[in-house]
Every structure is written in C-alpha cells, then in structure tokens.
C-alpha cells in the first residue's frame, strides 16, 4: 500500500511538472521530451573520398597523334573529395563539399603561361588541377516542407565557373510520396583558343536546368521514383581546343551551335530483398535538339553479409545516337557546324562495378565507415576507363 501511494505521488508530481504543451495535446509527448533535447549544433557526417581514373582511347578531336587523327585520349585523374554535414537545431542542415581534380591529360592542358607553346596542339601530356567548393543550406520549414539552397565555385587553369541551386521538396500522404522541384544555374567563363593554340580571349556559357521529381512508396519494401529535367545551354559550348579533320587535308576548329535544349526523363525502382539485400533498377531516356537520343539502363544489387559488412555490384548499359554534324572528314562549305569529338558520336557504353563497405560503430565518434570500389567503363569506340575509389568517414 505504501509503495502504491509513493508511486501515485511520484506520478502526480511528474504530471504537474510536465510542460503544459505536452499535456495540452491530449497527453502526447514531443520528440524532444521523449528523446531528450537535441544539441544546438550537431555534426552528422564527415567523409573523404579519393578516386583514381585511368583512361585509354583515341578520338579524332584530339591533336595528340597523326594530323588526320585519331589522336590520343589517354588521361589520368586523381580526384579527392571532402564532405562535411552539420545540423543546427531542428530545421537547418549545412553541407560543405570540396572536390579537387588533378588531371594528367593528353589534350587538355591549355595554358600558355608556363610553356613556350600551348600543348593543346603539340604535347601529349601535361597536368591540370581543378578545385571546387559547394555549400548547401537545407531548411525543414515544417514536417512536410523542405527548402534547399546551394552555391558553388569552380576553378581550373583556363576555367572559372559559378553554380547556384534552389530546391523545394514536399512530403505527401504521411511521407508515402514526395514531390520536388529544383532549379540549377551554372555559369562558365573560360579561355578560348584558336586552331594553333593561341589564346583568343575569353568565352562563356550558361546552363539553366529545371528538374521535377516524384517518388512514391508502392509497398513496405518498394520505392518508385520518376524525374524529368530540361536544360538550356547557351554560349560557347565547345572547349575551343577540339579540332576536326578536313576532307581536303589538315584540320579546323570544332564549331558547335551556340544553343542546346536537353530533355531527360528517368524511372527508378528500389526493392528490398528479404535476405538483407536491395535491388535498384533505373531507366533513363534522353533527347536533345542536336539529334542525340539515348537510352540508359542501370542495375545495382547490394547485400548485407554481416551487421558491419555490405557488398554491392552494378551494371550500366548506355546507347546514344551521334549529333547530326559529327564527322571525321569535314567539308567546311557543307555545314556551319562540325565536330569530331568522340563523346558526341553514336556509341554504346557499358560499366561494370563492385564495392565493399565496412561499418564499425565506435563509442564516441559514431559509426566509422570504410568503403572501396572499382568500376570498368568501356565504349564501343575502344575507349576504356578503370576507376578505383576509396572512402572513409564518420557518420554520427
């Protein structure tokens, strides 16, 4: 009896001391009361990723070879990325992302500051470094509405770029569905080079993108997502050092239209498998007004082998038609536009990849994760890329 009386007094005291708003809602408790007050600032994620690319191939746009081509597309890239995500209170999330690319390329180095002759024309190997920083702020305005704004700056040797983004996302039907609208703008400002590698001044381009997305839970284990994006690119759309072999012998600079409208739509399905696995399928259709039509199909299988060990395998098939003015033997009087860029040709590509991730919970620093992966990319025109990637970080 005495024990029951003490319990009753304690319960009465707890109810009396509980915040008014908790009881005002019919006895329900807020998240903060159940889970404890969230710290004002909380680090959610710190990670780094390093990827190494080794590419071989030949393309008629490259002058790193015989005059009539094809020239070398040999390329090595060492790409380092860092990411830091921090939440502030219940509504704000900050994300800072810094990628740095170190490129050793057969045809890309375009500076004439340190070399007697710009090696866009003559030298088959030089180095170029690109660095970028992006910042995103996400505001969870209410339980269903999220706004994200982003800015970024990119710098490489002959190239400056600015990036702006704004996204609105709304959850529907008790989080069963999500609708999103995103707008992105990229402004590029870069050196322009003539056929002989001589700097001709500065050029610019702008890329404006509008993206619509919709996702829906189809079952307790199935998620479907649909997206459509339209992109308008205007300005100098060539890198200005690509060249085109002429039918009469010799070469001329690549000439591209100054505007391009691109459409991409995709459907993705994600299915949880009862043996702690997951299957992702994605189909993407693409079409633009340079007469490129493309179909891409991706599949990824992930499997949890232990609480701390995940493995994955992926495959991607991509087919595209070439732009209408692609040629490796141009006749200048026949068309104002011409390109021999192998990326703009009709081709199909395949990518086979695999990855392993280890998650190790720690007492004070959240979960330490280590990941490594490998991708082999190969194209119908014999271009090959091997990619090795490593990531490590803490998820708090």
């Amino acid at each position, binding site marked *: 009896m005495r024990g029951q009386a003490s319990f009753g007094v304690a319960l009465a005291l707890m109810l009396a001391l509980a915040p008014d708003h908790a009881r005002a809602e019919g006895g329900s408790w807020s998240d903060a009361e159940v889970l404890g007050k969230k710290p004002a600032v909380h680090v959610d994620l710190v990670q780094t990723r390093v990827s190494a690319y080794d590419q071989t191939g030949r393309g008629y746009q490259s002058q790193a070879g015989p005059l009539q081509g094809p020239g070398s597309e040999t390329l090595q890239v060492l790409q380092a*990325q860092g*990411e830091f995500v921090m939440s502030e209170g219940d509504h704000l999330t900050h994300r800072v*992302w810094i990628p740095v*690319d170190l490129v050793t*390329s057969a045809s*890309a*180095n375009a500076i004439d500051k340190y070399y007697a002759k710009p090696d866009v024309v003559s030298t088959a190997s030089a180095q*170029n470094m*690109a660095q970028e920083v992006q910042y995103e702020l996400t505001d969870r305005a209410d339980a269903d509405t999220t706004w994200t704004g982003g800015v*970024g700056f990119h710098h*490489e040797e002959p*190239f*400056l*770029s600015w*990036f702006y983004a704004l996204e609105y996302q709304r959850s*529907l*039907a008790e989080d*069963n*569905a999500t*609708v999103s609208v995103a707008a992105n703008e*990229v402004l590029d400002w*870069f050196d322009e080079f003539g056929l002989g590698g001589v700097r001709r001044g500065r050029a610019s*381009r702008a*890329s*404006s*993108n509008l993206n*619509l*997305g*919709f996702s*829906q839970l189809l*079952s*307790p284990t199935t998620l479907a997502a649909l997206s*459509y994006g*339209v*992109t308008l*690119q205007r300005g100098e759309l060539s890198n200005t050092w690509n060249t085109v072999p002429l039918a009469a012998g010799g070469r001329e600079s690549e000439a591209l239209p100054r505007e391009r409208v691109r459409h*991409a739509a995709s459907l993705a399905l*994600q299915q*949880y498998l009862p043996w*702690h*696995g*997951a299957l992702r399928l994605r189909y993407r259709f*693409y*079409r633009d007004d*340079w007469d490129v039509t*493309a179909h891409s199909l991706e599949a990824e299988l992930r499997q949890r082998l232990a609480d701390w060990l*995940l493995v994955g395998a992926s495959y991607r098939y*991509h087919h*595209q038609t*070439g732009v209408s003015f692609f040629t490796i033997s141009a006749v200048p009087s026949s068309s104002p536009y011409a390109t021999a*860029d192998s*990326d*703009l040709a009709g081709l199909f*590509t395949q*990518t086979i990849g695999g990855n392993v991730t280890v*998650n190790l919970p720690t007492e004070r620093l959240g979960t330490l994760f280590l990941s490594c992966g490998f*991708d082999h*990319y190969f194209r119908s025109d014999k271009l090959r890329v091997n990619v090795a*990637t490593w*990531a490590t970080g803490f998820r708090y």
Partner: protein
Amino acid sequence: MLDFKTKLFVSAALFAAGLVQATLLGGCAVVPQNHRAAFAEPVMRDDDALDAHRKRKLYTTREAAAGGDGKTAGGGCSCQ
C-alpha cells in the same frame, strides 16, 4: 503529325500535370509508418553524395547524352 519539339513539350506538360495532380491528391498512402523498417536498412540507403558525384562526372565528361537531369552537365571539366 506532331513534330519532335511539340511532342516533347506535350510530354513535359503531361508530366507536370501529373505532378500537380499528385500534389493535389496528396499521393497514395499505402504504407503506414510502422511498416517501413525495410527502408531503414543500410542496403537501402542512397545518400552517398560523393560516390554519386564520381559516377556523374565519369559519364557527363564522356557521353553527349549524360547530364541534364538534376545537375547540369557544365561546371567545368578539363578532361573532355
């Protein structure tokens, strides 16, 4: 016979109309919150932005048809 641009415009308009309809109807509530444990499994996570960037750059710098969906195929690349 509709030309290609008109077809694309009509397709985009229909897609946008579908999104508006989904918004107005509030989507379909088919899975209650206490039946979503599968989506919390690590194998269902799809939030590695750095890996996504790596893959996107692999494709946008080598395929004329890559990009244009969510992130623009611009922003500078010395490896084209």
